[in-house]
């Protein structure tokens, strides 16, 4: 897993959910962190803006864990 991207993803999640970065972990699902579809939209849009990319629908729908999000971005930013 790309550690640099993980840091960005973790801090984005923490900011949107108003939780501590330490409460975010690679294996945690979005559901574990009480992230609903609007939060997810908020998080992914922020990450798209940060990296200047567009996450395709199939990839967006496949994100369940923090690690999934990191790997998805890694492929697109790569």
């Amino acid at each position, binding site marked *: 897993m790309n550690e640099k991207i993980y840091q960005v993803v973790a801090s984005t999640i923490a900011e949107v*959910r*108003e939780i501590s970065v330490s409460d975010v972990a690679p294996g945690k699902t979005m559901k574990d962190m009480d992230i*609903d*579809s*609007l939060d997810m*939209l*908020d998080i*992914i*849009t922020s990450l*798209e803006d940060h990296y200047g990319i*567009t*996450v395709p*629908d199939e990839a*967006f729908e496949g994100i369940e864990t923090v690690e999934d999000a990191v790997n998805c971005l890694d492929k697109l930013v790569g």
Partner: protein
Amino acid sequence: MKIAIDVMGGDHAPKEIIEGALMALKEDSELELVLVGSEDAFHQFLPEGTERVETVISHSVMAMDESVENLRKKRDSSIYLANQVVKEGRADAIISCGSTGAQLGAAILVLGRIKGVKRPAIVVPFPTLEGPRVMLDGGANVDVDAKLLTEFAVLGNAYARLISGEEHPEVVLLSNGTEEHKGTAAVKEAHQLLKDAPMLNFKGNIEGRDIMKGEYDVLVTDGFTGNVVMKVTEGVASALFKLVKKEITSTSLRKIGAALVKPGLKNIAKMFDYNNYGGTPLLGVNGISVVCHGSSKSTAVKNAVFATKKFVEQDFIGVLRDDIAAYRDAQKEEKEVSSHE
């Protein structure tokens, strides 16, 4: 004062939305509007040279049944751009009659949430025997816990204070019994939290049959129940009016009586007419974003403009921000006290 209107959202958009905007301009000589919509809409319905109107051209529309996730790809949609106009400080508030989900999503993406708000809620003006009352959540949050229900109560309390002028609005929780041990786990826990919240005038639980009595100011429930209650009420009211109409016009003699009761029935029908409510704000987003009924026509849009104007004048977001901050501080203090004990 400048208000941004998404002219592409709603069943009767853009014609009725633009007409409503023009009606508002005619009634208020100081009002300025930013209309967001397609070039074609303005070409067809906005008279050239209309004063006090700025137009912003959008290139897509979020359909009523479209997934909110599509906002990512539709940043050129009228609802997204209307929010951006407010974010950039070019207008003080937004009005839309389009998809509530899209409006909520766009507001969260562009304007963000008020600090301390976990989930913004949709507030619904609910017709009761004592006049309209505030109900929330109207459908934004289907799965909620006790803390979220309490947050809705704080948001609804601030809103009710502004619209009714009541210093300590009476807050009630919808349950399947008035006793505090009744309800889902979330409702039972929320009852205790609400009872302990010093800033709320909590009056306990009420049952579904008491909603229409209106013996409260703010009714708190989850988005699933709130939406069902709202739609069932609309359906029952519509069916009742149809039944009454059918019965009182079924014979010649009854028709004479019908003519006598018609004005009274019309007044009751007005109570249930969304056109008179003029839209309600999303509670918890960091800007004034007013949601109108999807079937709004020009009069409803005009009323929404004046309702929105009032929210801006009352510093609606400032009031919400202060209340949420006070609620979070109280929670923090409580946590500190219990950790010392």
